[in-house]
Each structure stands twice: as structure tokens, then as C-alpha cells.
């Protein structure tokens, strides 16, 4: 009897197919009270379908769902919520314009079917739940003004107001910093003590693994297995997830011939409350990694090099010549390219065809002698890049939206390579991309370096930096704290330096 109650959620032999595609094939999952579990799988592996089935949004074709010992034939969203299952989606579903107090409490008030608002009650509920997770926040602050990590805590508090027994968090650590992740983990561990289970859903080999007790891996809609976290390391897990052995080679930089001038040199670049006194050089064929936590000024620095964030002082030299970069247009003309972190909003015209996306940076070059747009030239150019970078797509007319993350990123890379850059800045080039595509993109980057392009990779994924760069620049609070050659560095050492500030 007691044994049975230990199990909070049991999902047995779930089958689900959408028109012709088997999204889930006999998947099992069982979670104990107070357990911290991780569900990993690449994009399209069926993770989100499984979550939707557990939360009652999607009906399985076959299989059993047992929550709190109750068997549900036909699980509705309301049943799932009243049994204490709460999903925190990646977008958090908060109201940016409302106060923290309201964001935490409104759901409960709605559930009670109240018509009038008692502000004291709203504040009391919010205060109680924040206290529950040992956190102090200004109840009256609007949610749009707080950090993503705090927004996440607000969402957790909201889930707690509805008697959550299992909190499912979708990709919780993609947008928050190391120290914030630690804070989130301490909250999760606190909930565990109260008997509340957590299920992390992720397609990244990320920090969530560290605090999960067990990891469920699914691939192509099938259960690969359930593993104790201690048994797993990066390579075995990526093998389970992708089904392929990924060989990542370390990048070795050899200066081909003596270069007189570096491709890019930055001297004493400063911008108030962004970064201070930044000095570094990039030589032809080098891959420089810039890392630091969110807020260390890494992206701001990149934006300044690309003419999107005017620095207060300092100099930028390209090929030894002092240059002024006032706009992206200037930057492109000087041979700079910038791949933004936010691929969907900043990198692509998501509703436009792949062909149009690739040629957008070089429209000038596609004009014929009457200064009219030459569609054949466009087609040829785009086709070449799609072939060169292995973009898998049915045609050039396919809209960018329809591609997987990895293919989308290759389109963005193609679009910038089309400008024939001398210096390529890549801001988090593999964020949200599955492992196989990731290593493919890394190989593309290394090949580019071998062709003599100077490359800057900005990333907070330490393995990415270590395996792909020949030199590393560490930023903290807008200042360079360390410049090292990669061969003098290990992952652990790097993590250690990065974490030092955080407390």
C-alpha cells in the first residue's frame, strides 16, 4: 500500500501517432514523490508530446496514466491540474504588465471562481509562496522589470498556489546564469523536502542533469532507457540521445605564415556600464572564444564591433587600419559578420523562403546591368550555399520556419558567409540545436577558420568554447579577467574562474 503511494505518476505503454508519424511508441515513465527527474531527448523526439499527454492537453491513442494511484482513462487538463501536475512552459506564461503578487495569485483566485478582488488576499498568497521557497521579491514590482530567473521563481510560486505535487519545467536553464541556476536548484531541492517532485525537460546536456536523480532518455518516440545520473557522462548521454557517436576534435591553430597585422585589433574599448578597457587581437585563421555569464558584457561587446552599440571610447583596427563602425552597414563593408544569439527573431526572416534569407545580405551583388534584381543569380547563389553547408531542405522556396534548429542556423551562417566576411562573430551559435547538428556546425566553423577567416565565438557553454577555440577570453562584469590559450585550460578550471564572482 505504502509502496503504491510512493509512485506519484505512472505512464504505461503510451502510443500516440499523428497523421502517419508515430510520435510516441510504447513509452513508459514513472515518477516518485519528491523525485527530481530529467527527461531528455533531441528536438522532435517526442518529449513535448509526452508532456502534453501528462498534462491532459493531448489524448494518447493507447496506454495508461495513473496519478496518485488513480487510473485515468480519459485524462483532461483539469484532472491533471487538480491532481497537482503543473507545467511551467519555457515562455513561463506570465503577465508582464502585472505585479509579482498578482502573477503568483491570480490563478488560484480564478480557480476559486471569485468575482471580486481582495488585494490583501493576493498579497498574502504571494508572500506565503515566496516564503515557501525562501525568496524575497518586491510584490508590487511589475514582472516585465525583473530578471528571467526571478520570473521563473514567480512561475514556480504560481504553480505552488495550486497545490502542485509535480512541477514540470520545460528547458528551465537556457536563459539564466550560472548563479541563478544554482538558486533555482536550491529552490527545487527545498521543494523535494516537501515531497514535491520535479521533472526537467531538456534537449540540452545541461546543468539540470546534475541535480536530477534519474534521467529518462527518449529518441524518435521510443524510450531509450532510464539511467542513474551518476552513470552518465557527456559522451554516453549524447550517444543515447542521438544514437550516434559524435567525435569532437579539438581545434588546433597553426599560424600559416607570419602575419604582420592582426585581422582585428581592439584597443581600450569601453562603454559605460557595458564593458571597460577591452583589448584583444584576432589573427587570420584563429578562433577566439569569449565567455562569461549573461551580463558580463559579452554580447554588448559583439554588438559594438558590429556597429549596434556605440562605444564611448577606444579604437578598433582592421588589417592595421583604424576604423569607425557606426552601423551594421559599415561593419559589413569592413568584412565583419555577426550571427546573433536569437536566431528566430534576429537571425532569420522566419516567414521568408530559405533562398531569400540567404541572399538578403548581398542583394547589391545580385543586380544585373540594368540595376534590376536577377532571379537566376539569386537561385544559383542560394543553391550553392545550401549545398556547401549541407542545409537539408526540400527546396529553396521552403520557408525558414519549417526547418529544424540546426538547419535554420546553417541558413543564418550561409547568409553571412555570402558576404565573404574576413571576421565572423558568432553569438551562441549552437543554442537550442541538437547534438548531431551541433558538431556539424562546429566543423563548419573550424573549416572557415582553416580558410583564413578570423572567428570569434561567444558562448556560455564551456565545452563548446574548449573544443573549438584556440584562445579564450574570460569576461566578468564587463572586464577581461583572463586571456589564455585553450591548451592551458580545462573545463573545470574555466568553470571555476567563471563561478568565482557569482556569490
Amino acid at each position, binding site marked *: 500500500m505504502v509502496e503504491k503511494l510512493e509512485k506519484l505518476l505512472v505512464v504505461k505503454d503510451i502510443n500516440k501517432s499523428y497523421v502517419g508519424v508515430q510520435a510516441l511508441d510504447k513509452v513508459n515513465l514513472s515518477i516518485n514523490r519528491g523525485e527530481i527527474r530529467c527527461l531528455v531527448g533531441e528536438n522532435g523526439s517526442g518529449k513535448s508530446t509526452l508532456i502534453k499527454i501528462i498534462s491532459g492537453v493531448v489524448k494518447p491513442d493507447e496506454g495508461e496514466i495513473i496519478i496518485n494511484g488513480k487510473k485515468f482513462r480519459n485524462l483532461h487538463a483539469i484532472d491533471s491540474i487538480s491532481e497537482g501536475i503543473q507545467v511551467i512552459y519555457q515562455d513561463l506564461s506570465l503577465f508582464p504588465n502585472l505585479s509579482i503578487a498578482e502573477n503568483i495569485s*491570480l490563478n488560484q483566485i*480564478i480557480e476559486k471562481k471569485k468575482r471580486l478582488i481582495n488585494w490583501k488576499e493576493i498579497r498574502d498568497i504571494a508572500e506565503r509562496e515566496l516564503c515557501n521557497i525562501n525568496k524575497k521579491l518586491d510584490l508590487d514590482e511589475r514582472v516585465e522589470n525583473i*530578471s528571467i530567473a526571478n520570473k521563473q521563481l514567480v512561475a514556480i510560486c504560481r504553480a505552488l498556489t495550486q497545490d502542485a505535487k509535480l512541477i514540470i519545467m520545460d528547458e528551465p536553464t537556457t536563459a539564466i546564469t550560472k548563479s541563478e541556476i544554482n538558486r533555482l536548484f536550491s529552490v527545487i531541492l527545498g521543494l523535494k523536502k516537501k515531497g514535491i517532485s520535479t521533472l526537467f525537460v531538456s534537449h540540452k546536456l545541461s546543468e539540470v542533469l546534475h541535480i536530477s536523480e534519474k534521467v529518462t532518455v527518449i529518441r524518435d518516440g521510443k524510450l531509450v532507457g532510464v539511467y542513474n545520473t551518476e552513470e552518465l557522462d557527456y559522451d554516453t548521454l549524447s550517444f543515447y540521445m542521438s544514437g550516434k557517436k559524435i567525435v569532437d576534435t579539438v581545434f588546433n591553430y597553426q599560424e600559416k605564415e607570419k602575419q604582420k597585422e592582426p585581422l582585428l585589433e581592439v584597443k581600450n574599448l569601453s562603454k559605460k556600464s557595458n564593458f571597460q578597457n577591452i583589448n584583444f587581437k584576432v589573427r587570420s585563421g584563429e578562433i577566439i572564444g569569449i565567455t562569461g555569464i549573461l551580463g558580463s558584457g559579452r554580447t554588448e561587446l559583439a554588438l559594438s564591433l558590429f556597429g549596434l552599440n556605440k562605444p564611448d571610447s577606444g579604437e578598433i583596427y582592421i588589417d592595421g587600419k583604424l576604423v569607425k563602425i557606426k552601423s551594421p552597414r559599415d561593419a559589413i563593408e569592413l568584412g565583419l559578420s555577426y550571427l546573433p544569439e536569437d536566431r528566430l527573431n534576429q537571425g532569420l526572416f522566419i516567414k521568408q523562403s530559405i533562398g531569400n534569407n540567404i541572399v538578403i545580405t548581398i542583394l547589391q551583388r545580385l543586380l544585373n546591368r540594368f540595376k534590376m534584381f536577377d532571379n537566376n543569380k539569386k537561385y544559383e547563389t542560394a543553391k550553392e550555399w545550401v549545398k556547401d553547408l549541407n542545409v537539408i531542405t526540400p527546396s529553396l522556396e521552403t520557408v525558414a520556419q519549417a526547418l529544424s534548429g540546426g538547419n535554420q542556423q546553417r541558413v543564418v551562417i550561409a547568409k553571412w558567409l555570402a558576404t565573404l566576411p574576413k571576421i565572423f562573430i558568432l553569438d551562441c551559435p549552437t543554442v537550442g540545436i541538437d547534438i548531431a547538428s551541433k558538431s556539424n556546425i562546429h566543423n563548419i566553423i573550424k573549416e572557415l577558420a582553416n580558410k583564413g577567416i578570423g572567428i570569434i565565438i561567444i558562448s556560455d557553454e564551456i565545452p563548446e568554447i574548449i573544443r573549438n577555440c584556440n584562445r579564450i577570453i574570460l569576461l566578468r562584469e564587463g572586464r577581461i579577467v583572463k586571456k589564455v590559450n585553450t591548451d592551458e585550460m580545462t573545463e573545470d578550471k574555466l568553470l571555476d574562474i567563471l563561478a568565482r564572482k557569482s556569490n
Partner: protein
Amino acid sequence: MLKNNRSSKIRKLLKKNELYLFLVIIAYSLFITSINSSFLSLENMFDLGKSSAGMGIMAIGVFIVLLSGGIDISFTAIAISGQYIAARVLIASGVDNIIFAFLISCLVGVALGAINGLLISYYKIPTLITTLGTASIFHGALLTIVGTKAINSAQLPDCFKIFGAKDLFILTKPNGVNYGLSIFIIMFIVLALLTWLILKYTMLGRGIYAIGGDINSAVRSGFNVAKNQLFIYCYVGFLAGIAGVLHISLIRYSNPTYLVGTELSVIAAVVLGGTRITGGSGTIIGTIMGVAMVTILNNSLILVGLSSYWHNFFVGLIIIISVCITSYQSKRSIGNIIFR
């Protein structure tokens, strides 16, 4: 701690657009008074209040639509429909009663508002397109079905005239001229208060904020978004109905082509009052001040000796300036978030 608390309160106050708008209104009023001393007199204030009450009531409606992330440009067509139909019914039936007039006008308003609301909530048509279309339909239907003939002062039922002259109390100037606080102003204040109460203390009101903040989150949280939207557009219709009656009582004349065309300056007043055009944020106090600013501007140009044609020019200018300031502020605060 206490001191800290107080200083953070002051900082919050300084962040509010309302404060700056208030200071601008005061400064401008003082400037106008220095040119024409009669401007800041109680009589002129009462007069301004009375003539702008109708616009103010429509502005309240626009305010809650904007708050919910929508926009309504059909409310002037609704107001004139309510007004003209009410006047026609009163004349035809011989019932000379202002309550009856309000009843008809508001009924027409709510019915037309419900059409907007249904189209928007059930068919999920963008609010701008919906109300652009219905504004045309409502006004066109009024002109073709009900008529185009103006109702002049002689034909107008007495109840409108009596209501239009009703003051709550009367004061006498030293030169013997009487002036008073019009009941229009009281109605405006009551409706503003009612709206404030709905927004602040009912789930319906919080739902309007929630929808304006993030409509998908509102659905996931369990708000009945469709019902909420239906309410919003009916309420706008209701307010437009009231504004229609105030308008006819003020000018003692009804022409079914009036009012339509003034919707943009009402929306402008609301935006000027700090309500975000993208939804989710704004206050009723701000809306009232926005209306006050536009009214004062309108009234003062003549006092300063400028043609009233300058009115549009200045309203536009003020809006652009105020939006620039807001945009600048939010740009700065985004910078702050990154480096917190």
C-alpha cells in the same frame, strides 16, 4: 528602512508619466493665464469640464479597449447612432424624458458594441479591422435607414435642453453673472470612478489587464477571454451611448454626421495620458489628464490668438513628444535590466 521605503516610493512616482503630464498641464495653464487672466478662473474650468465631459466618457471607453490590447474606432459612430436614434424615438413617441433617452441611446450602444465584441471574440478578427468595418456599417446604416435630417433646436425635446442646463450648484460672479458645476462633470466623474472600481476590484477588470498583457497566458490561466472581450466592447458601446446624449444636450442640435471623425483625437488623448497602445498598461487618472490636456489646448489657442486650425497640429506634436519620451525611458530601463 522607513526612509528607504519612502525614497523608493518617490522614485516610483517619478517614473510615472502621469506626474510629468500633470506638471505640463499646470505649466501650460499658468502660461495661458499670464496671457489671459480669465483662463484659470473657476468659471472657465467649469465650462471646460462641461464641454469635454462627453469626450472624456468616450476616452474612458477607448482606455479600456487599449488596455486589453485592442483598439476601437467605431465608438463615435456608435455614439452618434445612439444619440440620433434616441432623439428620433423621443420625438416620434412624444415621451419627453431624459432617462428614457439615455436608456435608448445606451441600448443602441450596447447592441452595436456587442456586434464588435462577438466579431472580435468568436471570429478572432483583429480589432482594428473589425471596428474599421463596423464603424462604416453602423454609420452607413444610420444614415440610410434612420435618416440624414438634422434635428434643430426647435424640434428637440425639452428634456435634452433642461438636462443640458442642469447645474449641481450655482455660483455668482461679482458682476452678477451666474455659473455652475454642470451635472455632465458629475456623470463623467462617476463613470470614471465606476471604471476604476471595475478595473481594480473585479476579476473582470484584472482579466482586461491580463488579456492586454499576454492573451495566451490569460487563456492558460483560465480567464474567459471571449466573455471578457464581449464585455469590453459592450461597455465601450454603453459609454458611447451616454456620450451621445451629453453631446446633443450640450449643443441642442443633432446631426447624424456629427461626432464621426473625432475618434482619432479621443484615442490621441488616451495615448497622451500614458496608456500603451500595445496594451496592458495605463491608468484612468492618466486618461483624465490626457483629455484635460487636449481640451485645454483646444480652448487656449483662441485665447492666445491662434486659429483653432492649429489645434490638430499641437495635439499631434504633443503626442509625438510624449511617445518619444516614453520610448527613451523604456530604452534606458532595458539597459538597466541587462546589467542588473
